[in-house]
């Protein structure tokens, strides 16, 4: 087990390296550079002045030199400075955004997992009944609405019209921190975020539960007179959770990257917002650093997901 984990971690490191090369190359293919992003086309600037700014940022160096310079620093734990922000180190920037993102995603996903798994089981067990139909239709509606539209509507109804929740941000400016203030800002974006995930988890849970309930060993258990409640929770649930664990695992891994739509509508200061602005302003060091951090999180979560498999289903050998 320990050897397996070590092996996976080593492979993960190699993958991170491949990932940074890939993103670095992709970034060079992106039209425009940090200086192009800096200039308001309505207030023109000479190309000479732009080239002088370029040289100051080291953007006139050959690409492999730029990459190796970045890599050697990154290997020592220094992700460099943002090109577009004020004296902010990339690691500092990322650290300050991961918290809010994990809070938002954690809240949203927890709501989603509880609602999704519970309603999925209910739907499967009460197959073809009114609760099943209504839950299925609700879930379908949930995954059928674009997240940004739900977010805009939520914002409009609860913030602009009813004035129940703030229109965005994480804390009220110029006031002291309070948990109540934080939750007040969190509730709407987390709820909007949970809708899609809950619906998705519910559907996978239902499909996989139905599958398992039809299998021989479950039928055998039923035939032996085991109570339906125990059939579901003890015999079926473990196996039915397999695909759902995969789904949740991949969602958690990606969660570190933030929820672009929800974060951008609600102005939530998380990774998604950071990345949107970094890509818009071609802030290379921030994009590279974020790639590295998010990549590492995904790799670790993937390893944990595979381990969780082994725990849930002993038939799968971790080799």
């Amino acid at each position, binding site marked *: 087990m320990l050897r397996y984990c070590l092996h996976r971690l080593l*492979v993960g490191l190699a*993958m991170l390296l*491949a*990932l940074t090369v*890939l*993103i670095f190359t*992709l*970034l060079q*293919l*992106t*039209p425009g550079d940090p200086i192009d992003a800096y200039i308001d086309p309505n207030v023109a600037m000479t190309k000479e002045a732009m080239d002088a700014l370029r040289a100051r940022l080291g953007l006139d160096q050959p690409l492999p030199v730029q990459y190796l310079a970045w890599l050697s620093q990154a290997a020592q734990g220094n992700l460099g400075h943002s090109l577009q922000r004020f004296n902010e180190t990339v690691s500092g920037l990322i650290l300050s955004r991961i918290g809010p993102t994990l809070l938002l995603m954690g809240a949203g996903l927890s709501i989603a997992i509880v609602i999704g798994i519970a309603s999925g089981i209910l739907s499967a067990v009460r197959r073809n009944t009114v609760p099943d*139909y209504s839950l*299925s*239709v609700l879930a*379908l*509606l949930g*995954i*059928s*609405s*674009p*997240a*940004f*539209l739900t977010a*805009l*509507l939520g914002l*409009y109804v609860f913030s*602009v019209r009813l004035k129940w929740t703030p229109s965005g941000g994480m804390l009220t400016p110029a006031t002291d921190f309070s948990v109540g203030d934080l939750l007040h800002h969190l509730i709407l974006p987390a709820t909007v975020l949970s809708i899609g995930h809950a619906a*998705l988890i519910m*559907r996978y849970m239902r*499909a996989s539960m139905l*599958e398992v309930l*039809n*299998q021989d060993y479950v039928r055998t258990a039923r035939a032996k007179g085991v109570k339906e409640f125990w059939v579901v929770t003890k015999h079926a649930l473990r196996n039915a959770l*397999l*695909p759902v664990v*995969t*789904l949740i695992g*991949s969602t958690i*891994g*990606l969660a570190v*990257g933030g929820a*672009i*739509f929800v974060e*951008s509508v609600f102005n939530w200061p998380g990774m*998604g917002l950071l*990345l*949107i602005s970094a*890509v818009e302003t071609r802030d290379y060091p921030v*994009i590279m650093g*974020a*790639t590295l951090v*998010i*990549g590492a999180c*995904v*790799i670790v979560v*993937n390893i944990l997901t595979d381990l969780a*498999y082994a725990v849930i*289903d002993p*038939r*799968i050998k971790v080799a």
Partner: protein
Amino acid sequence: MPASPSSSGPLARATGRFLLNRAALLGVALLLPLLAAVLTYPLWMPYRPNDIDLLAMNAAPSAAHWFGTDGVGRDVLARTLEGGRISLLVAAASVVLSTAIGFLVGAISAFGGRFADALAMRSVDLAMTLPPVIFLLVLASIVGSGIWSTVVVIALLSWPVLSRMIRARLLELREREFVMASRGMGAGIGHLLFRHGLPNSIDILVVYATLQVANAILLEAGLSFLGLGVPPPAASWGNMLNAARSTAVLEQYPWQWLFPGGALVLAVLAINFIGDGLRDAFDPRADLN
């Protein structure tokens, strides 16, 4: 294994089961008229999707314009139908592409031996490790906006999840006796893939594909929200919905986003009903009741 005494083939049985599924039939009943309208609208619509009329802009639904008009006086019904063409095209094309990639990579990983498994899973991991926000934004700004680049972006973003699920399912299958036997008899990878892999993962494929149609339509809408995706003035449900970003449109001209939004939700709902029906129908282990 529930052996059916029926003499008809599996396809006929699946069709029979599908026809008994009311939700699936409802889906068909919703989707067919929508598809027919989307495909035939140039024949009967008096307006074309890009005809502007500055004298009738932001007009509410009326006898002349059933769905009203948008900010430059274009007929919202004509644009909703044209948008449906584009959105469904983008969704269908990207799903075909991503399902093919996802299944092949997942199945090869499960059946192809240790080396293939390692290679396939590393590429899946690499693709899944790519932060989607970065990948999406960077890829979209490299290939530029447009219908086919949207298809490619969506497909490249969505196949890895499927691969992992296929692999998970087939790994479980690999340990079963009949597959072990077939491997023992020296069955080729093609045989394993399509005789054992495909039928045994059809439910995953169908559930994935239906959800992915929804995802693809939604992703296209999301790309438009970020200013990528299908570029205006071409119509797509996504870039029409994008108008709701403006509070004035959201509040004062709701028909400009309600109708494309409604069409989008309706189409996705219908496709999902059908997908669920197919899932039940194709499942070789489905309850015959």
